[in-house]
């Protein structure tokens, strides 16, 4: 190259770098003016008592009557309050109701007269009656209407057999709410902490119409915080509710949510930059976390994860011997310890997770699930029987539907290789984003699916009724009258030991019939700024819960 050419190259390079830098500066300046004044960049502020957190996703539905996901549940848990709530130690404590009484046939709640909506008007028993009636109204089409079936006539109203005003709930006065039960519900105090049971004020809802809960100004709050900004898909800001009855106990003034992502490398980088007060870790960040000497913590989020089979008539997975063959080569221990490799995850070999309470202690300790002896030889025998019964020489390729996340991809490819190696089965992986995975799961467009289920209340029934033929969430369309009978016993009996026996029987049927292949209970690993205290992570209810959180000086 000649000297002139070199000089020209150097000039071009310098000019290019200069333009690039100018562009970056201009873009970041543009971002600050279009960012709507987001106070991003500070993980926490001791003076203003505010923190910055993230959400996994945009809350899909903040109308408490219709919501069905944990992200909306987390936001609603901060801005709304039901009759009762969970405290930091997961005990049911008074919320809007200051005392309550649960009888075999019904319940009475006495509301505190200091409970206020964020516009200053009192929260009354009528607000609960209105909300509950609209939940079970078939016109509302709430996914969670079934959780109100414990209230008298709930199921009949939801299936259009009665008008909504026949629901067994009455406002005796502004401050006394009386509920009649359809069937005994000893855990009704836990049910009313659930978002579907939250109050909604009729006149406010009417003033907003279909726009109710569509934006921050289309919501009325009665919880510890109010939502002051909701830029969809971008950021959310919660501020302390000055009308909240227990406002003196709330020590945070603001919760900023400028990041909506579940990508752990991003979260960890933001945490490192001091832009987030806490961050979840993925297995790729463990080494870094140990190197940076962070205090890593862990919790179980209560959910169970499993391979769900399709029981629709045209699907090969309807064949018991095929499912048995797959069951006999699937080792939850290897999946958790080698493939997932995240502490906090636990191998699962039952429909019921290990944390569920039983009669006196933990259900799984009182009723251990029948053991499965893994055996490739046995599995191959069952596979041969399955081929004979299905009348095929080779099982057609099975479609394994999975989420398009790092972990789900890993698991799906592990299953693909496992079943190819042990049973010579071809598995086709159908990766979909969460929404689409749920849609395909609901539509039955799969042979197998990597699915999960989170608990709604701390009773084995929250998992047990999942495979009842009459449950709308039974997306595999498993239909077994013997199983349904056990679910009915668990739903209708007040005898705890009879109920637990029924759950044990469900657990046995699930394994005998290889209805699904449980793999793991999910755990979460996270880091948190040491200045932040009092955050609660739990299996059931608002998670994470910042209601009692507070900031301290660095230790």
């Amino acid at each position, binding site marked *: 190259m000649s000297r002139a050419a070199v000089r020209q190259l150097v000039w071009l390079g310098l000019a290019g770098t200069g333009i690039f830098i100018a562009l970056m500066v201009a873009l970041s300046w543009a971002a600050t003016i279009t960012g709507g004044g987001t106070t991003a960049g500070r993980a926490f502020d001791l003076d203003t008592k505010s923190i910055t957190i993230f959400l996994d996703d945009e809350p899909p539905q903040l109308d408490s009557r219709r919501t069905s996901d944990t992200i909306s549940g987390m936001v609603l848990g901060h801005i709304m309050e039901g009759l009762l709530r969970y405290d930091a130690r997961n005990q049911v404590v008074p919320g809007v109701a200051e005392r309550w009484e649960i009888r075999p046939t019904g319940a009475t709640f006495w509301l505190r007269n200091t409970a206020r909506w964020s516009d200053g008007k009192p929260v009354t028993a009528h607000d609960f009656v209105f909300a509950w009636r609209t939940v079970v109204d078939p016109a509302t089409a709430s996914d969670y209407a079934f959780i109100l079936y414990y209230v008298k006539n709930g199921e009949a109203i939801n299936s259009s057999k009665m008008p909504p005003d026949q629901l067994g709930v009455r406002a005796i006065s502004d401050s006394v709410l009386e509920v009649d039960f359809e069937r005994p519900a000893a855990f009704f105090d836990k049910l009313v902490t659930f978002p579907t049971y939250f109050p909604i004020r009729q006149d406010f809802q009417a003033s907003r119409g279909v726009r109710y809960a569509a934006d921050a100004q289309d919501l009325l709050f009665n919880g510890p915080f109010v939502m002051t900004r909701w830029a969809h898909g971008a950021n959310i800001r919660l501020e302390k509710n000055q009308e909240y009855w227990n406002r003196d106990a709330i020590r945070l003034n603001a919760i900023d949510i400028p990041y909506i992502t579940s990508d752990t*490398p991003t979260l960890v980088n933001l945490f490192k930059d001091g832009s987030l007060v806490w961050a979840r870790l993925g*297995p*790729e*960040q*463990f*080494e*870094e*976390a*140990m*190197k940076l*000497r*962070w*205090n*890593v*913590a*862990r919790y179980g989020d209560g959910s169970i994860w499993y391979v769900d089979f399709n029981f629709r008539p045209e699907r090969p997975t309807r064949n018991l011997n095929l499912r048995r063959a797959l069951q006999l080569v699937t080792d939850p*221990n*290897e999946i*958790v*310890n*080698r*493939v997932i*490799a995240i*502490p*906090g995850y636990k191998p699962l070999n039952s429909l019921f997770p290990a944390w569920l309470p039983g009669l006196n202690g933990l259900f799984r300790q009182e009723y251990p699930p029948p053991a499965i002896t893994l055996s*490739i030889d046995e599995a191959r025998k069952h596979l041969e029987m399955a081929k004979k019964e299905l009348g095929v020489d080779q099982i057609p*390729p099975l*479609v*394994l*539907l999975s989420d398009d996340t*790092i972990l789900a991809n*890993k698991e*799906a*490819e*592990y299953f*693909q*290789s*496992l079943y*190819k*190696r042990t049973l010579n089965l071809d*598995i*086709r*992986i*159908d*990766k*979909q984003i969460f929404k689409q995975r749920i849609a395909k799961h609901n539509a039955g467009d799969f042979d197998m699916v990597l699915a999960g289920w989170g608990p709604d209340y701390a009773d084995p029934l929250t998992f047990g009724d999942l495979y009842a033929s009459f449950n709308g969430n039974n997306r595999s369309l498993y239909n077994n009258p013997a199983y349904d009978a056990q679910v009915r016993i668990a739903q209708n009996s007040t005898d705890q030991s009879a109920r637990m026996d029924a759950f044990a029987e469900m657990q046995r049927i699930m394994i005998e019939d290889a209805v699904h292949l449980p793999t793991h209970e999910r755990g979460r*690993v996270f880091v948190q700024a040491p200045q932040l205290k009092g955050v609660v992570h739990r299996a059931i209810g608002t998670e994470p819960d910042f209601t009692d959180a507070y900031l301290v000086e660095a230790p």
Partner: protein
Amino acid sequence: MSTPAHLTPADFAPAVMERHVHAISRPSLSYWQDAVRRLRANWRAMTSLGVVIGLCIFAVAGPWIWQVDPAAQDVDQISQGPSLPATALIVEPGTAWAGVTKEPTASGDVVANLRLAEPATTQTVRLTWEPVVGATGYVVYRSIYDPAPDRALGLPLGDSLGANRVSYEDRLDLKPQRYWYSVVVLDANGAEQQAYETFSVDVVRAASIEEAQARGWTTQDAALTVGTQLTLPFHPLGTDYLGRDMLARLIYGARVSLFIGVVAPILFVLIGIVYGSIAGFVGGRLDQVLMRFAEFVIALPFLLFMILFKIAFGIGPGESGVIPMLVALVILDWPPTARLVRGQILQIRQEGYVSASQLLGAKTGYLVFRHMIPNTLGVILVTLTFAVPSAIFTEAFLSFIGMGVAPPTPSWGSMANDGIRTMLSHPHELIFPAVLISIAVLAFNLLGDGLRDALDVRMRGRE
């Protein structure tokens, strides 16, 4: 005045015919011989040619030399960097461990005598310690660094609830390295104590005979005894996030990449030649129509058509998208070649030798095959060599975004996509496919560059 030259009669004798006035001092070189000579003098192009041939051998002969299944998962060697063969200690088959329970006698806020209950292997690390009065449980942490002095305990593995339950079994992703285990006492309120007991363990890689056989590390009849060392499958370039051999995956990935990279350009260049020659040779209104259509095809968005073809072909989820990719490339990428060939043909048609040939009665076929095609061959060859890297890159890009091969089939692009997640902790999973993509693209480009220089008629006879 100048004096007249002195002329002699000999000057007026007839000249003797000299036969060698126009003798050619060097051997005659045809166009192609000259091109090859110039190509061989271009060291960059020759190196690239060597690399291209090497890649082809790598892809074609690789599986015979390196007979490892690219989809086989070795869950005992996950995300391992390039290394020498590892060995594992043969141990007794693992049995379930009930754990240790012991009633507490000593009180305090930290456990004593944290120790191994059994030798630590990659199968399992079983810890036990002395119980503490008043504890409600114990939390076990594990780190790859010493927790002292700032209480950096590492990952919380799990807990053991109850004062008397003084054991923990760790099986989580154990690697043959040193770990620091720490145990923290939970007080009556379930809160973790500040004090901790720590202890370091060197874990050794181990397997039972049954596992070794099930994983195919040894044959059924090979005599193995507990306590001996067994050599594990060798992964010279390491393994990926599911313990699959990187070298085998790179070889099979090269097959996909080179298949698309070579077959697609050959096909679309052929289409382009035929299309361009017709347009250029016939000319007139047909030329106009054909060229406007070619421009229309250029305007079609590639990615959209790739997706449409995938749907039109009925490619379901989890099935390979390589064939639709090939079709999309062939259907959408021929117009540039067609334009180039048309231009060349138009130019050559005006040349004197073509007119001469026509006057001498040459037929169309003769003109095309004798004069037109050979004279455009150089341009075509250059187009082809430049189309190959762009097709390789397209394949890599489409597989990267998940539109290409279906798992478990590897391709360089999909391997790069898998590797990017663990870029910081296990960079080899990204670097190897990325380097191969870069080398392949660069080699084909430099080769194309060299070919263009070599085949340029104006450069003829020059170095």
